[in-house]
């Protein structure tokens, strides 16, 4: 599977990474090259094989449904680049 410039632009947007137009062709090449490496997986017979979804077969532990954490708004906001009146602040999203 080869990635063209338009697909590279879409992937960059999916990943929310700004890529300048002139950087798209080399990005497309790099991504195509890595995907070509992955094509080897097509040689494997995976008929009837279950995808591995957990490393160790174990049931997830359950605990009481109760509040164990919270009430530290200041700590949560302490590292924010911009916070105001107890909220994270972001550029305007609604006109």
């Amino acid at each position, binding site marked *: 599977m080869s*990635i063209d410039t338009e697909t590279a632009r879409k*992937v*960059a*947007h*999916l*990943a*929310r*990474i*700004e*890529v300048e137009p002139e950087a798209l062709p080399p*990005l497309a090449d*790099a*991504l195509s*090259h*890595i*995907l070509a*490496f*992955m*094509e*080897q*997986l*097509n*040689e*494997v017979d*995976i008929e009837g*094989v*279950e*995808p*591995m*979804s*957990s*490393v*160790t077969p*174990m049931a*997830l*532990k359950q*605990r009481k449904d109760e509040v164990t954490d919270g009430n*530290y708004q200041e*700590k*949560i906001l*302490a*590292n*924010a*680049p*911009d916070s105001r009146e107890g909220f*994270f602040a*972001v*550029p*305007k*999203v609604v006109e």
Partner: protein
Amino acid sequence: MTDLSKLTIASARDGMRAGEFTAVELTDQYLAAIAQAGALNAYSTNTPEIARAQATAADARISAGDAPDMCGIPLGIKDLFCTKGVQTQAASHILDGFKPEYESTITGQLFDAGAVMLGKLNMDEFAMGSSNETSFYGPVVSPWRRGNDTTELTPGGSSGGSAAAVSADLCLGATGTDTGGSIRQPAAFTGIVGVKPTYGRCSRWGVVAFASSLDQAGPMVKTVRDSAIMLEAMAGHDPKDSTSADITVPNFEAALTGDIRGKKIGIPKEYRIDGMPEEIEALWHEGAEKLKAAGAEIVDITLPHTKYALPAYYVIAPAEASSNLSRYDGVKYGHRANIKAGEGITEMYERTRAEGFGDEVQRRVMIGAYVLSAGFYDAYYIRAQKVRTLIKQDFEKVFADGIDQILTPATPSAAFGLGEMADADPIKMYLNDVFTVTVNLAGLPGVSVPAGLDSGGLPLGLQLIGQPWGEADMLNTAYALEQASGFDAKPARWW
């Protein structure tokens, strides 16, 4: 003054308990050594005040006679571990100035046991790399050189700062993390011991996530005994990590008898790869002979899907990374890009991530986004997860046949020069993980043991792969291999 080059965690523990030196004296000596080792770029943050306070507290516990094994032991902590109030950036620009309000479970356990934090250790950005060259802090320089050649070499990656610091006596032990080989490869490159435990043995809570189903933290130290001591302090069930296993942590040090008579050691034929240097092949053969001489039985085995481990890994790891790294958006912490008039939140997200992530991280996040995107999810991600099942089954079969551990080379070469791979395509760098990545995919424990030097005088390591939760037995075989190898080379000090 204690000779730091000869000191181990075990001997420091015994020396402090016997009153030969104090934790404060030891800590001061390490802080002085770190201050003179700027050329290595191993530490990204120094924490001398914390270290001295922890050492003072450790001395009080040692005097009172209730000190755990790690009490007063000076450690370096990989920058991937969240440490309360101390800069934690995963060596990325996007986490500029991040100071967690909480402590990772593992560092919390180590500090509760009395360990001393000397500082944070440099690494590849978000643990993505095999040479430490993707770090926003700049690469770590290995303390090792090829004889009199002054070419700067890589300590390996991603736990490159950890490996360099232990090897250069800038700490007695370091935490590392291993997603595809990031503990074992740098350990092999620098002549130290590195353990990747069974997935679920150590809590991942508070460790900056790369690929959640593969990430596992472990100790990087000078000897197998030290790895047993430190692993025990790091391990254990944590209700805050739902994948951490509620399984009793054995006394790993007590398992080190050196008696491996009757153990079956598998030699997988698929690990004999094209272009592997003869020195590595010879080292591997000698390692097997040494285990045989110690009473083990050497058995040829087959792990038929080995070849597909790297491509499967480079689907699964970037997929999980693209999801995990979506949290870096310039809102909650770290770097935020400036936007121009008329631009909005999408431009803010996209520019923040373009400015904040390095090239390799961007590449993997985009590959991950692609393989998870509609229409490709089954073709790439599900297929890779199925191949992963087959790789795990390969191991299950040989263990069911009675194999106790598997012996392989740790890396396909000795350390290479910084910048040497700059023009190589990314896949060439990925090949560094060819012997280690299967272990992460199968969730198994693995240990890299220094086993010899190459013709240029650089360390080479062998890897032992254990059964799930079989760290104690695996470390005992590693101990026997260590004893038989008698590796005691140290880098000549130039920094």
